[in-house]
């Protein structure tokens, strides 16, 4: 082995080492950026998912008697929903039990189910619009509500509010941003109402229960009126 051969061999090893260091450097930088941008760790302060409830909560049954009626075949959720993350994420968090579901309303676009959870109920619309879970207290206060500001499931020029109201409510209405009031149709404790984005937006829901007027905010931001929504 002469000196030239040794130098060539050392040179090629140095070149390979250089490439490896460059690759490792790039990889480390990529991992560091990935960690800085997003985190896959489970956040501190996040409670563990509630165990699947085995029976409707006593408080929620007193508010939603539909959950206590005998089940029929129509009450069963369609297959493919339970466990599907895009549809069952919140339900899984709150211990909803699909085997206890009750069909609340049907339309050509889909069916609305009420599903008992560990502390309350979930409203699930198979059309892909309202999907809200709430405690019994929130249902009593009218806070079981979702505002859909952009979704492929509704026309891009509309927004929708959907939610649950307890038994014994009467004269449910929606207060709009221009001060006008319009009736809110409630079917088996559930409602779902669309509004033109270009018109007055719903600001609160009002109803009478026990002789008292109740109000809850819809939390629809005013920016919804100028939002540009796209549908694939």
């Amino acid at each position, binding site marked *: 082995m002469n000196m030239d051969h040794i130098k060539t061999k050392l040179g090629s090893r140095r070149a390979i080492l250089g490439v490896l260091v460059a690759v490792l450097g790039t990889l480390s930088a990529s991992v560091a950026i990935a*960690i*800085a941008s997003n985190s896959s760790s489970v956040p501190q302060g996040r409670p563990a998912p509630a165990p699947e409830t085995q029976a409707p909560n006593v408080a929620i049954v007193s508010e939603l008697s539909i959950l206590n009626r005998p089940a029929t075949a129509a009450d069963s959720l369609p297959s493919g929903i339970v466990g599907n993350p895009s549809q069952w994420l919140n339900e899984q968090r709150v211990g909803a039990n699909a085997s206890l579901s009750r069909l609340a309303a049907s339309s050509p676009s889909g069916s609305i189910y009420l599903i008992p959870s560990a502390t309350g109920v979930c409203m699930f619309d198979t059309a892909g619009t309202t999907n809200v879970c709430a405690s019994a207290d929130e249902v009593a206060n009218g806070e079981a509500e979702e505002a859909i500001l952009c979704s492929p499931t509704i026309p891009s020029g509309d927004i929708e509010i959907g939610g649950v109201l307890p038994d014994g409510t009467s004269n449910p209405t929606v207060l709009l941003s221009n001060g006008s009031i319009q009736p809110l149709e409630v079917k088996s404790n559930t409602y779902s109402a669309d509004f033109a984005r270009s018109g007055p937006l719903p600001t609160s829901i009002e109803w009478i229960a026990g002789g008292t007027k109740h109000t809850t905010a819809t939390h629809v*931001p005013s920016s919804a009126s100028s939002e540009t929504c796209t549908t694939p």
Partner: protein
Amino acid sequence: MRNMAVWLAATVSCAVALAIPAGAAAGEGHYCEELVPAYTDCANNPGHSWDYWNGVVDVNAAEYYGEGTVNVCEHAYDRGNGDTVSDRCGNGFAGSSGDLAYYFEHNIELSSHAGNNSEHPHTIYGTIVN
């Protein structure tokens, strides 16, 4: 060279393991996780870097775990044209439901956001599933 290759493989394995911490649900990622001012998107919260998620996702959700009822919003934009794909607000939780399915199936990158839609500062969590 063989030792070098083994060392490289071990280093790469460690780096990947560090990037996916133990305890994370498969396919679930988290962002924001910070005190967010009233009516503010996590991405507009000054001084924070983990405040939105760019990439291909199946679900985006905004969550609040604390006491009381706090309204939160999730918001997903098409990174190509900036249009809103999904925007939903709810008390304690707002999820994109099936809104992102088309983009997930077609491998289209979105910018996923979460925000505080209430009148007081609260700790808001963003979650994606991919």
